[in-house]
C-alpha cells in the first residue's frame, strides 16, 4: 500500500544520508599521517594551536565517539567554524545560498525547457531533424561546462560585452543578469542528457497502442501529445528533474569559479584548496542531502501521477 511506499522511500533516504555522513566524516580521518599537519601544511602553528585544532576536529577521540559527537552537532544544523574565515559555516553558507539557489533553478529551467522541447521535436519528427538533434545532444553531453564557460566568457562578456564577466550582482534583477551566462553554461552541459532520455520516453509512448486508439478516434495531434505522450511521461520527467537539480548543484563548483560568482560552488572549491574541512564537510552533506531530498520527492510524487503505482505500492 501507499504507506509502505512512503515508509520504504523515507528509510532509503535516511540510510543514504547516514552512509554519506560516515563517508564525509571518515574522509577527514582517512588522511594519511597526522590530519592536522596535512590540513595546516605550510602554516606555522604553536603546539597549543595544534592541540586546540585536534580537539576541535575531534581527533583525540576514537572514530565512533568522534563521529557521534560530530553527527550530534550536524543534526542540530551546527557545522562549526570555518578554519579559514573564522566565522561560522552556517553564516558562510547562508550568505551564498540565494545566489547558488537562483543559479541552480535558473539553469534547471533553461535545461528542462530546451531538453524537453528538443526531446518532443526529435521524437515526433524522425529523419533529418531527429538526426540533427542526436548530434546536438551528443555535443551537449560531451562538452564539459568549463569549456562552455570559457567560450561564453570570450564571446559574450569580452567580445560583445553583453554580459558581465564576473560577480553576482546586487538585488534580484541584477543577480539574474549576472547569472545568465553561468546558467547558460550549466544548461549547455546538461540539456543533452535530458533531451536524450526524454526522447526515448516520448518515442515509447508515441508508438503505444493507446496513442494509436486516440489517433483512430480523430483526437487532434496536439491533444495526443499533451494528454497521452507528455502526460504519460511525467514520471520519468520528475526523476530527471530531481537528478538534474543535484547535478547542477555540483556543477556550480566549476561554473561559479569560472565566472567569479560568489556562491556555494566557489566556496567549495576555495575551501578544498585551503583545506577548510568544516566547510567542505557541510557543503558535501548539503549536496548529498539535496540529491536525497529531490529524488525522494520525485519517487513519492509518482503515485500521484500514475495510479498503477498507487495500487501496487511499488515501482512498475
Amino acid at each position: 500500500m501507499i504507506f509502505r511506499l512512503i515508509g520504504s522511500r523515507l528509510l532509503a533516504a535516511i540510510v543514504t544520508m547516514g552512509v554519506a555522513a560516515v563517508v564525509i566524516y571518515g574522509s577527514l580521518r582517512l588522511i594519511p599521517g597526522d590530519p592536522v599537519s596535512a590540513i595546516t601544511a605550510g602554516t606555522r602553528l604553536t603546539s597549543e594551536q595544534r592541540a586546540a585544532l585536534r580537539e576541535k576536529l575531534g581527533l583525540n577521540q576514537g572514530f565512533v565517539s568522534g563521529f557521534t559527537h560530530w553527527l550530534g552537532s550536524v543534526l542540530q544544523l551546527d557545522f562549526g567554524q570555518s578554519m579559514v574565515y573564522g566565522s561560522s559555516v552556517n553564516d558562510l553558507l547562508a550568505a551564498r545560498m540565494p545566489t547558488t539557489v537562483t543559479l541552480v533553478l535558473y539553469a534547471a529551467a533553461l535545461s528542462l525547457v530546451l531538453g524537453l522541447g528538443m526531446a518532443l521535436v526529435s521524437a515526433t519528427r524522425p529523419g533529418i531533424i531527429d538526426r540533427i538533434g542526436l548530434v546536438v545532444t551528443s555535443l551537449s553531453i560531451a562538452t564539459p561546462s568549463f569549456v562552455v564557460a570559457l567560450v561564453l566568457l570570450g564571446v559574450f562578456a569580452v567580445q560583445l560585452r553583453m554580459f558581465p564577466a564576473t560577480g553576482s550582482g546586487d538585488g534580484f534583477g541584477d543577480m539574474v543578469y549576472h547569472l545568465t551566462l553561468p546558467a547558460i553554461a550549466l544548461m549547455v552541459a546538461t540539456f543533452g542528457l535530458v533531451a536524450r532520455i526524454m526522447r526515448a520516453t516520448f518515442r515509447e509512448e508515441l508508438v503505444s497502442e493507446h496513442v494509436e486508439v486516440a489517433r483512430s478516434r480523430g483526437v487532434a495531434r496536439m491533444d495526443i501529445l499533451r494528454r497521452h505522450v507528455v502526460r504519460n511521461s511525467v514520471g520519468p520527467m520528475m526523476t530527471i528533474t530531481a537528478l538534474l537539480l543535484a547535478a547542477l548543484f555540483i556543477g556550480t563548483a566549476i561554473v561559479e569559479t569560472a565566472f567569479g560568482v560568489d556562491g556555494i560552488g566557489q566556496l567549495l572549491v576555495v575551501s578544498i584548496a585551503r583545506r577548510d574541512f568544516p566547510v567542505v564537510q557541510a557543503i558535501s552533506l548539503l549536496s548529498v542531502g539535496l540529491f536525497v531530498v529531490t529524488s525522494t520527492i520525485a519517487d513519492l510524487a509518482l503515485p500521484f501521477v500514475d495510479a498503477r503505482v498507487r495500487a501496487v505500492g511499488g515501482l512498475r
Partner: protein
Amino acid sequence: MMSTATNSSAAAAAAAPLEISGLSITVQVDGESRPLLDKVSLSVAKGEIVGLVGESGSGKSVTSRSALGLFPGHAITTGSVVVDGVEVIGASAAQLLELRRTRASMIFQDPRSSVNPVRRLGDFLTEGLRARGVGRAEANRTAIGLLEEVGIRDPARAMRRFPHEFSGGMLQRIVIAGALSIGPRLVLADEATTALDVTTQAEVVALLKRLQAESGTGMLFVTHDLELAAALCDRIVVMYAGRVVETGAASAIFAEPQHPYTVGLLGSNPRLTGERATLTPIVGRPLALAEAPAGCAFRDRCPIAVPACATEVPALRPSRATEVACIMPGDEKAA
C-alpha cells in the same frame, strides 16, 4: 468547403457504411516494394455485420484500418474506400479527422493497451466526443449512459476509476462503450474478443451484437475464427494472402464452403457443435501477399491444386451460394 460537407452528408443518408472496391496497398520496405493487399473489395450495409476472416498475415487489419485512413507508412494506395459516403483515399487531414470523430470507430484487440493506463476511464470514454467539440457535461452524460448499457455497475463511479481496476472483459466493454460514444455509422472490431477467455468472449460478442442491432450501425467484425464469424455475422469475407478468396452469406459459407481454404479454416477449428470432432488443420504456414507464388496464392497448401492453378490469379466468380476465387470450387470431395 461548407457546401462539400453538406453534399457529403446528404449523400451519406443513402450511402453504405463501408464500401471498399479494388483496394490495393503496396508499402516500401528498405527500398523494396512489398504488396500487402491486392484488389480487395467488400462492403458493409446499414445494420449489417460482416465477418472478415483469415489466418494471421492475410491482411485483415490492414483492410479494416484503411476504413479510418490508417494506412501503413510510405504506402501506395489505389482503389476506393468509401465510409458513409466519404472517400478515404486521398482525403485531406481535416476530412479524416471528421470521419474518425463522427462516422466510424474501431475496437482493438487488447483493451489493456487500448486505454491510457494513467488517465481515468471518463477521460477515455469522452475523448472521442470531446475531440468533436461536445461539452464536458454532455459528453459525461453520454458516457455514463453507455456504461450502463454495456453493463458496468455504478457508472458514475466507474468514470473516475482507472483501467487497472477492471478485468479484461469489463475493460473491453468500456472500450466498446467508447467506440459507440460518437454514434458511428460503422464499427470496426479488429479481433475485439480474441484476447478474452471463452466465457467472457461469448458475453462480449453477445453485447456487441445487441448494441449493433439496437443502433443499426454497420459492423466489420475481424477475426481468425470462422465459426465465431459464422455465428455472429450476416455475411463473411474470407481473405488469404492479401486477397479476398471467398465471400457470401454466413450460413452459406458455413454450410457449403466453396474455396478449399475456407474448407480448411472450418476444419482447423475444434467444433463445439458438430458431431465429428476431428481436427484437420491446413498444412503449411500462411503466406503474406509479398511471399505468394504466381497464380493462386493458396495452391502450395491446397489439397486439390492442379498445374492450372499456377497460371493466373483466379477472379471471384459465383459458385452455388457464394462467390469464390478458385478454378475448381467445391471440388474437394472429388480430389
